[in-house]
């Protein structure tokens, strides 16, 4: 080794975890969501291994990046070892919207490389790659079927030398390079250790559902998001959804208490809770089925609309039409503001939808529409969608945090478990600033609705149980339940 304390090799690479990515030029991938996962993009002129079993999407991922850059006039060279034929590969891409036939043979060039490997081993292959890079001067090189190299049975040392030389070669030629290999796992082979980045695409079955995930094992020179992130292969190609918990709250903390309050939309409730709800807070309406949680949420949204604040309703079980009808029955008009674009109603059946994709749609709508009030009707829907149920609490913490950062006041309904014994499982307290409990109580063989404040941040409030009434004029809060019981007032009809 050299006498001096070298900081990098000839091409500016280090074998450690240098922290100089702020100076490194990053390449945009052109894959929605991928740059965010990578911490801004891929460090240029580096060597990457994209691995994943057959059908995982690695060729699509690499070629989608290639097409994105070729459209900007950059040269892309696709070298194939033992992989599908060039014609088949082109045929498969042609189904995606990113495909552009005009680029083939011009900006995107295909070369077969297997005969060099078969004829002269790694040395001959390296020569071919050197000659191809010198001739074509591509900014992106994709080597498909890289496993053929391991299958050609080189010694470990030969393979390490090849990887080392290839890494230096692509760096010296200014070519960002992707090796595609149909394997899984981060094993200590030279293919994994001598590349600058290791990206794995995986797919597995969850019940009858197929789940696709991407994981960045390592990425020298970038501050990537750790762990797994969901992705989908759709007609536009691959779309990645960074895991919400890893993306929010990194740079923006929720706003400090402003002392500003917003009305709940129910005047009589505002009196009970000390004037209103703290702005940019999250309120949980926890209650039995049919007790009036959704009606309260509709009042909250309606109040904002009357003040010119754009609103968003997210529901999982009631269609927009049913919700509008429900609102109409308590004298709330949702149809007009929805038609005017002041109100968005996002209805999502809690079936096969990706949690982070849903979060992206919610936050995009909030940002684009300048939404100030969100009503999430049925937080259980989020729990049903979550592929990994243990993830739901952290996901909700992240989502609510981001809404607070965006200065949005949120109401969330949550169904109270039927059994009293199950109620201790409620995760409400850690997620919400405010919790209002809505219950049916029996009195003289009749049911009355009762509302209680369980938690209210930054407010003085009346902690007695109050009567709640729903009429065609909407929801109102009346006197104390204890007084009613004393005075033997008849219980209102349910």
């Amino acid at each position: 080794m050299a006498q001096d304390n070298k900081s990098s090799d000839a091409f500016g690479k280090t074998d450690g975890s240098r922290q100089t990515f702020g100076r490194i030029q990053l390449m945009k991938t052109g894959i929605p969501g991928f740059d965010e996962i990578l911490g801004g993009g891929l460090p240029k002129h580096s060597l990457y291994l994209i691995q994943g079993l057959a059908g995982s999407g690695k060729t699509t991922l690499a070629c989608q990046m290639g097409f994105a850059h070729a459209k900007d006039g950059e040269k892309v060279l696709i070298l194939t070892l033992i992989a599908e034929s060039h014609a088949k590969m082109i045929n498969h891409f042609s189904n995606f919207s990113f495909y552009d036939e005009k680029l083939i043979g011009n900006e995107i060039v295909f070369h077969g490389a297997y005969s060099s490997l078969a004829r002269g081993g790694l040395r001959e292959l390296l020569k071919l790659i050197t000659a191809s890079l010198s001739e074509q001067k591509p900014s992106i090189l994709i080597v498909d079927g890289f496993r053929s190299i391991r299958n050609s049975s080189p010694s470990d040392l030969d393979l390490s030398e090849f990887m080392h030389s290839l890494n230096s070669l692509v760096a010296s030629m200014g070519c960002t390079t992707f090796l595609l290999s149909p394997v899984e796992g981060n094993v200590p082979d030279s293919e994994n250790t001598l590349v600058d980045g290791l990206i794995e695409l995986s797919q597995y079955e969850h019940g009858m559902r197929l789940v696709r995930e991407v994981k960045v094992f390592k990425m020298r020179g970038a501050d990537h998001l750790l762990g797994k992130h969901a992705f989908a292969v759709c007609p536009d190609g691959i779309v990645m959804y960074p895991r919400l918990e890893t993306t929010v709250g990194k740079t923006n903390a929720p706003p400090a208490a402003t002392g500003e309050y917003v009305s709940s939309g129910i005047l009589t409730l505002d009196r009970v809770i000390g004037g209103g709800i703290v702005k940019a807070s999250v309120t949980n309406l926890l209650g039995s089925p049919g007790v009036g949680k959704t009606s309260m949420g509709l009042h909250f949204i309606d109040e904002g609309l009357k003040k010119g604040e754009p609103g968003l309703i997210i529901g999982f079980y009631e269609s927009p039409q049913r919700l509008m009808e429900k609102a109409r029955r308590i004298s709330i008009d949702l149809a007009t503001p929805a038609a005017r674009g002041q109100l968005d109603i996002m209805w999502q059946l809690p079936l096969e939808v990706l949690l982070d994709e849903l979060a992206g749609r919610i936050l995009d709508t909030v940002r684009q529409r300048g939404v100030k009030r969100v009503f999430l009707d049925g937080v259980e829907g989020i729990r049903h969608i979550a592929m990994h149920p243990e993830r739901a609490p952290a996901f909700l913490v992240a989502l609510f945090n981001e809404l607070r950062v965006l200065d949005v006041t949120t109401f969330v309904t949550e169904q109270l478990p039927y059994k009293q014994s199950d109620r201790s499982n409620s995760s409400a307290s850690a997620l919400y600033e405010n919790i209002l409990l809505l219950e049916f109580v029996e009195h003289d063989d009749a049911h009355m609705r009762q509302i209680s404040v369980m938690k209210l941040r930054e407010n003085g409030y009346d902690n007695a149980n109050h009567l709640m009434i729903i009429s065609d004029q909407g929801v109102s809060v009346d006197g104390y339940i204890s007084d009613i019981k004393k005075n033997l007032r008849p219980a209102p009809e349910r």
Partner: protein
Amino acid sequence: MKLILIVDDEIDITETFSLLFEVHGYEVLTATNGREALALLQKRVPDLIISDCMMPVMDGITFRKQVQQDPVLGEKPFVLMSAAPDQHDLASVKIDRFLKKPFQFDELIDTVQTLLHK
């Protein structure tokens, strides 16, 4: 065919440059330190020398000083490269071009072609 001597202790660099220069029609000799390079120079006279600074056994500055003393070899174009130029007394030797690592091959081949056609 012009002959280039590349001296660097990092094998991936000598390997890569060799392949690239060969593609561009040059013959290449490689050595991993100054002493090894001096031994090669006893047998063949290159048209141009490229040397790293930081190397074991004999560093690039010492190597250059030795080469300068030879009336024939001392006149051949000499390119020195280093990732940390401030650590070396570059002013103590005569060089035709200094390249700060990292650099890309385009810059190196331009330098070589310019020096060889002067």
